[in-house]
């Protein structure tokens, strides 16, 4: 995949899911700028940090996910610079890979290996949390009723993708 951030023709970005066969309803998110915040700041890049547990705020192209008390994950376009400030601000862009799960079966697909209650009343649009998917730790964020974002460590991406393929067979099977 050509990448404008790298010298053309010299380097090629590679990811753990480059050769993975596609799964209906599952797409690989574009590379993102990810920032791990551990601090008692009120703002990051001018955006108020969400103080409500398990909720994300979205401003333009940037999302800030509440992960724990005084812990947030920023998801922004890859070209956005990191805004350093007081507290721990760490660029973790390449630590994780994003997966987008879409479609009316999205919640059922996730529940194949994720124990969270994904009913809209329990996990509404805008909810986010760290949780588990089978044996991998993931960050799950509900962007719309039928649209979820998974952020998973690179080294677990192939495993999570394979588990999703296994689960998705239920919806693609024909009798």
């Amino acid at each position: 995949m050509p990448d404008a951030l790298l010298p053309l023709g010299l380097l090629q970005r590679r990811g753990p899911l480059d050769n993975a066969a596609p799964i209906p309803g599952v797409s690989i998110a574009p590379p993102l700028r990810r920032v791990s915040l551990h601090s008692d700041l009120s703002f990051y890049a001018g955006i108020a940090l969400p103080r409500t547990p398990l909720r994300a705020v979205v401003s333009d192209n940037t999302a800030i996910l509440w992960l724990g008390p005084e812990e947030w994950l920023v998801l922004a376009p890859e070209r956005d610079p990191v805004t350093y400030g007081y507290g721990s601000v760490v660029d973790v862009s390449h630590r994780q890979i994003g997966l987008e799960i879409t479609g009316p079966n999205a919640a059922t697909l996730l529940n194949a290996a994720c124990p969270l209650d994904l009913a809209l009343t329990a996990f509404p649009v805008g909810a986010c949390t760290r949780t588990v998917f089978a044996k991998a730790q993931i960050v799950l964020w509900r962007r719309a009723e039928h649209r979820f974002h998974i952020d998973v460590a690179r080294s677990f991406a192939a495993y999570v993708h394979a588990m999703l393929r296994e689960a998705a067979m239920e919806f693609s099977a024909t009798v």
Partner: protein
Amino acid sequence: MKLIPCPICGERAEIEFTYGGQAGLTRPADPAATTEAEWGAFLYARENPKGMHRERWRHIHGCGQFFNLTRDTVTDRFIP
């Protein structure tokens, strides 16, 4: 699967948590002045009740916080 009441996240599945052992243990303030028996009791002696047990849990695959709760070791029910 057990549901464990995290004080921040609410009821979540047991596999998101790690067990932290008996709650309320206090490290002797001055180890040099502590007898072997006292130190041994702090390190190794634990309650093993049939009934209510005060214990530490950590929501490691969630908000990351440590917290205390009471579990009935007979029924495995939690009381926050």
